[in-house]
């Protein structure tokens, strides 16, 4: 983050796998591409060796991302990306492990793995792309679908309350929690850079657009209209302090939510035990 040099505009082309056929499989205007760009530029800014990065993903639209990138990648079962990533980190503690996951992948099917990865505070960066629906399988309601929103499984409005992944991760014990949107790109890149540098479990929730299912069923418009919607609905953390709880409903508080640099990290603690037993 300290490097003041301006990046080139074509830096991300160096990190794409050339044999893969572009354009990508995502819908036109999908926010996943913007998050992918932010992640690549963050890695380039930090000057990591690309052999030291492992990208782990589960199933879903977001989980197609490691396929296009020139890092070590692991494409695993639905929801189990964090469990596999824990194993990778445990076997290779020097490696930077990044988990790319979606809201249905991390919070519904992999909810248990998610809270226990937070609880252990293992040094993994988890980028959770939240598009409020299951995009790949046809727009079913996910744990983050807002109340009264229409999806293919809730055609008359969602009666459930939605999860707040940032609050969940914070209370489960994650040591870095932040939220960004695909509209606020410079902040998103800063958050991802800080999360990669942080030692401990870091969660970056990115509010993204699924105009193909969530946007079309709820009449939110196309991709540029949904990005404009994120601009209107986002509130910074400083502003949100002075706002009432009712005003903040259906809005996103963006920025760094929580950082704890004192909490011990899982791999370090385990290494201490190994050294102790060796005598």
């Amino acid at each position, binding site marked *: 983050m300290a490097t003041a040099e301006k990046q080139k*505009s074509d830096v991300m082309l160096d990190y794409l796998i050339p044999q893969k056929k572009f*354009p990508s499989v995502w819908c036109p205007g999908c926010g996943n591409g913007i998050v992918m760009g932010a992640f690549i530029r963050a890695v380039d800014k930090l000057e990591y060796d690309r052999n030291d990065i492992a990208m782990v993903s589960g199933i879903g639209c977001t989980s197609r991302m490691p396929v296009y990138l020139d890092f070590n990648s692991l494409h695993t079962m639905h929801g189990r990306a964090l469990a596999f990533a824990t194993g990778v980190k445990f076997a290779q503690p020097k490696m930077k492990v990044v988990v790319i996951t979606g809201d249905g992948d991390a919070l519904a099917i992999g909810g248990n793995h998610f809270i226990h990865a937070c609880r252990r505070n293992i040094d993994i960066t988890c980028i959770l792309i939240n598009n409020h629906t299951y995009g790949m399988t046809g727009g079913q309601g996910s744990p983050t679908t807002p109340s009264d929103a229409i999806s293919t499984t809730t055609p008359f409005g969602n009666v459930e309350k939605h999860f707040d992944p940032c609050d969940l991760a914070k209370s489960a014990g994650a040591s870095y929690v932040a939220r960004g949107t695909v509209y606020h790109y410079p902040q998103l890149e800063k958050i991802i850079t800080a999360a990669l540098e942080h030692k401990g479990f870091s969660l970056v929730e990115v509010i993204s657009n699924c105009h193909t299912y969530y946007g079309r069923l709820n009449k939110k418009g196309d991709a540029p209209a949904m990005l404009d919607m994120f601009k209107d609905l986002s509130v910074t953390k400083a502003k949100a302090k002075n706002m009432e709880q009712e005003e903040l409903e259906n809005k996103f508080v963006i920025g760094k939510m929580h950082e704890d640099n004192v909490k011990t990290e899982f791999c370090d603690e385990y290494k201490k035990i190994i050294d102790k037993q060796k005598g």
Partner: protein
Amino acid sequence: MSDSNQASQQQDTTPKKKNKYDFSETNKPLNINLSWCKACNICIAMCPQQIFEPDRDGRPIQTRPEDCTQCTICWVHCPDFCITSTVK
């Protein structure tokens, strides 16, 4: 002070240059890879100087290249990595 006033008066007589770059129809500010473009319209909607216009398929054409300030918004928000700068 007097020098700067004179300089500003001299600038007023010449046509005002909008930014430090000298873009024109032949010297385009951006390279657009149209074979990767999916015509999502994000660059056209988000450009603060409105240098793009959609063509028949909805893909961007640089119709007003002289207004480009190289603000980076179009290429960081392009989900398909089509847009790169010619100078950066």
